[in-house]
């Protein structure tokens, strides 16, 4: 009921709204005017149209007078459009066959001093609404089914909690992690601020929970390579890189690594130690399966004169016969309803700040490298010793803050949020282990906003005697005689210049979006904020959603943050994903863009304006034409405005529906 070809039979209802409207304009006169308009079958006025009797009047009239369009002149549609849409729907009419006229907020309330003019204006507004009602069409809100599973990309603390929250809610989760183990950066930390919890101790139970969860399928050493589809139905291709070790057979006994002749810098220790070509990233790695690095392994890199590999030791001695050099990369296709991106961060590369001489002296290291030195599983077993020889205990450690943060010279204007706190922690841990050592923190500001943070920082100063000097370090120079770094400091509070000779300089490097974050963003068409991290839909109200429906972000992929905030955001993202997944369906809106393919010349202008990538040019019957994906369309109408031929229109806001309104308002 209510097709465009049938003769419109319009009912016009004018609300008094008590005295809000009727107290300014003559509603009887307005009603009489309305009944004189083309195709108006009945025009009435009533005290409160939104009330039960008011609505029932409309419902009765629809049935009795066979109305197929309804105009309600009352308050703002932002107030009661849903009310009257539901009202006419209950009488059997499509909800989009309603037109509301705002004669209260936009007329009687603002022209109280000009009641005659207000009445004139009301007539024009009602006439325009009746004109529009003539052209309204019934519209559909389609329900599309949702696949009840989710993809989480990234196995750090954020990804782990996102996966667990979803899995515990009954959703099947695929967790894809590009490195051989989950755990992320948190696995590399010694202790966490402000509680000085052992990082691995709180992390590994979570990792194991994920590994053992019946609803979570863990795909490690894997990468997302392709995405098709949209919210509720994403088709994702995941590339499983070959470990050359059969996960079903490997018992992680470690015999292979003992005999392996090839070694490489250990990524987990940031190159401060070595690992074998066949390796486990760290003892508590999940899954606990060895991996062969084909760039280092002699089987792959060296052949004899006959072309045969010169080594295969691990395969020979593995008691479980788990080594399989013939493994191939495999691509699997998964089908999910929602995606959560938790691809984390990388640290700022301090070689970009040449003044600090990173790479020139081994005594100048990053905070993450220092963290590995502090860690019991690191290159020194937790003893604070200077690289590269690990013989000397540094007696003076200088921590330089804001390396690659708040620094326009390296194009990073933002604050990385965690560095003040992690430096305070590292200074405390150093002083605990080297009580007679000196720790200096050269800072611009100390940002300690979280729970217990300020207290923690005060502990560093008062309990552990860490010296804080307010200064922007201009330069680190290497003393040619001692080969030790000298930090040049101008104390902003006293004005004194000093040259601090250090045994170890620790650069508090900022957080940058990881390379995989950038790749994944492109694949999913998620835009990036000016700072390079993933752009949330709304800075305040929708921090975990993106402009792409069904794709959520959390953790450091969205912006620098600490562990508690990453966990909170991970759970928020999972909860947002659940809003879609638990319903079982997604709805399209009624007023989507729609293209007349006979008129479309495939010029592609519409594709260029759509903020949601909802339009694509496809070849149909040998011609290039635009095609709208209803589920992605949010109904802005920009494509319709851009279309040079009028082929692209927006339902409910077509040119043929808007232009007559403009004409009526301009003429009357």
């Amino acid at each position, binding site marked *: 009921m209510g097709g465009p070809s049938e003769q419109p039979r319009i009912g016009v209802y004018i609300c008094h709204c008590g005295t809000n409207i009727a107290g300014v304009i003559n509603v009887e006169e307005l009603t009489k005017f309305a009944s004189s308009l083309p195709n108006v079958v009945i025009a009435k006025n009533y005290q409160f149209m939104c009330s039960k009797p008011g609505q029932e009047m409309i419902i009765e009239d629809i049935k009795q007078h066979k109305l197929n369009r309804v105009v309600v002149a009352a308050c703002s549609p932002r107030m009661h459009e849903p009310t009257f849409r539901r009202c006419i729907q209950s009488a059997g009419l499509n909800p989009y066959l309603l037109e509301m006229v705002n004669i209260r907020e936009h007329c009687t309330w603002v022209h109280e001093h000009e009641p005659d003019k207000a009445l004139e204006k009301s007539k024009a507004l009602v006439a325009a609404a009746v004109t529009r009602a003539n052209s309204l069409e019934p519209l559909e809100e389609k329900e599309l089914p949702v696949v009840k599973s989710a993809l989480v990309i990234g196995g750090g603390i954020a990804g782990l909690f996102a996966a667990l929250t979803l899995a515990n809610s009954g959703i099947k989760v695929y967790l894809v992690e590009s490195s051989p183990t989950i755990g992320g950066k948190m696995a590399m930390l010694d202790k966490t601020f402000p509680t000085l919890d052992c990082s691995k101790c709180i992390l590994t139970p979570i990792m194991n929970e994920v590994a053992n969860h019946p609803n979570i399928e863990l795909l490690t050493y894997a990468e997302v390579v392709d995405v098709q589809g949209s919210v509720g139905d994403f088709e994702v291709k995941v590339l499983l890189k070959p470990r050359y070790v059969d996960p079903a057979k490997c018992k992680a006994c470690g015999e292979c690594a003992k005999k392996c002749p090839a070694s490489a810098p250990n990524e987990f220790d940031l190159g401060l130690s070595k690992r074998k070509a066949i390796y486990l990233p760290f003892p508590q790695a999940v899954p606990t399966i060895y991996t062969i690095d084909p760039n280092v392994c002699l089987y792959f890199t060296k052949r004899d004169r006959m072309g045969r590999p010169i080594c295969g030791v691990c395969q020979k001695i593995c008691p479980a016969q788990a080594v399989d050099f013939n493994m191939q990369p495999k691509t699997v296709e998964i089908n999910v309803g929602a995606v959560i991106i938790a691809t984390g961060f990388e640290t700022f590369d301090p070689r970009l700040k040449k003044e600090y001489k990173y790479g020139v002296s081994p005594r100048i290291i990053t905070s993450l490298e220092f963290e590995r030195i502090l860690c019991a599983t690191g290159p020194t077993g937790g003893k604070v010793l200077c690289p590269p020889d690990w013989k000397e205990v540094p007696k003076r450690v200088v921590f330089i803050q804001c390396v690659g943060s708040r620094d326009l010279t390296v194009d990073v204007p933002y604050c990385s949020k965690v560095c003040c706190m992690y430096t305070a922690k590292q200074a405390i841990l150093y002083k605990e282990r080297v009580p007679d050592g000196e720790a200096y923190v050269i800072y611009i500001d100390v940002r300690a906003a979280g729970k217990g943070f300020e207290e923690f920082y005060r502990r560093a100063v008062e309990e552990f005697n860490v010296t804080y000097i307010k200064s922007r370090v201009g330069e680190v120079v290497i003393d040619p005689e001692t080969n030790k770094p000298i930090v040049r400091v101008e104390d902003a509070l006293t004005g004194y210049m000093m040259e601090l000779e250090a045994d170890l300089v620790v650069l508090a490097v900022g957080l940058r979006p990881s390379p995989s974050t950038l790749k994944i963003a492109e694949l999913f068409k998620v835009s990036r904020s000016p700072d390079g991290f993933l752009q949330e839909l709304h800075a305040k109200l929708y921090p975990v959603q993106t402009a792409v429906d069904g794709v959520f972000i959390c953790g450091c992929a969205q912006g620098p943050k600490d562990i508690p905030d990453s966990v909170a955001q991970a759970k928020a993202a999972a909860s947002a994903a659940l809003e879609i997944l638990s319903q079982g369906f997604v709805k399209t809106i009624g007023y989507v863009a729609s293209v007349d393919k*006979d*008129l*479309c*010349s*495939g*010029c*592609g*202008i519409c*594709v*260029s*304006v759509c903020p949601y990538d909802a339009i694509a040019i496809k070849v149909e019957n040998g*011609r*290039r034409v635009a095609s709208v994906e209803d589920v992605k369309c949010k109904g802005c109408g*920009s494509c319709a*405005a*851009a*279309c*040079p*031929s*009028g*082929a692209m229109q927006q339902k409910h806001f077509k*040119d043929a529906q808007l*232009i007559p309104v403009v004409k009526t308002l301009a003429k009357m």
Partner: protein
Amino acid sequence: MNPQTKVKIAFYWNASCGGCEEAIVDLGEDLFKVLEVVDIVFWPVALDFKLEDVEKLPDGGIDVAIINGGIRFSEHEKVVKLLRRKSKIVVAYGSCAHLGGIPGLANLWSKATIMDYVYLRAPSVVNESNVLPKEVVQTDVGELELPAFLDVLKPLNRVIDVDYYVPGCPPTPNVTLKAIETLLSGKLPQKGAVLGADVRAVCDTCPLNETKPEKLAIKEFRRPHAFIPDPKKCLLAQGLLCLGPVTRGGCEASCVKANMPCTGCFGPLDNVIDFGARALSFIASIIDQKDEEGIRKALGPVVDLVGQVYKFSLPSGLLKDLIKRKEV
């Protein structure tokens, strides 16, 4: 064929460059085929019929009058009204008759300014006695009547009722032939239709359309003289102001194939009310700038925006009644 059963056709040119007349001749050999079935009763540029011959015809005695050129002079108005009376079908042929054409850009200036510039101030004019055209001039052989220069240049349909339109500046031979075939076929489309051309825009038949990148994002437009465009890539994507997307097709993108961006001579598509306004909207839509300064910069090289988007259509559409004509 018996001259009585042949279709009677009249041609006339108003303010015309002559290109539309040439376009008829450009039919080449196909012209002979047409001449077999038509009887031309009036064609000032080619045949020696006089106006009196037309006046002597009965009303409706001409089957099809094909009129090109815009209405610029009182004489044009007079003759087309005569032809309307005498013809069953009137066809506005070419951009000028269809939309007003390039001479329509004169409507940006007041009549006084035009007269002043053309006859007195233009750099190449030598007019020491400051003579301006008059409608009645005394000569030694008597009074001479000259047509009046009308205040505004109009397309044909603003002066007489027009049945069909053939678009183009000039219409291409293919389009002309198709239009004539339609007219002679007896199967006439709805009144007001555009004959011989496509229902979709130029992009539909342009060979470069498929080379467009997924999204067009122009930081700054370029003029055709400023660089040599790659003939294998969409000209709009290269930053040229190609009006292909908004222009009716049918010309087989001949300008684009010659490496020149489309200027819109075939006019708007059926649902478009104002060609220039539509063009502005799509051009703006692909500008990759976020503030007013950047947007103006993107258009910087385009010195005459009105001339570009309303080149053929200023006297039709919406803008025509709103123009405040300039005095210089």
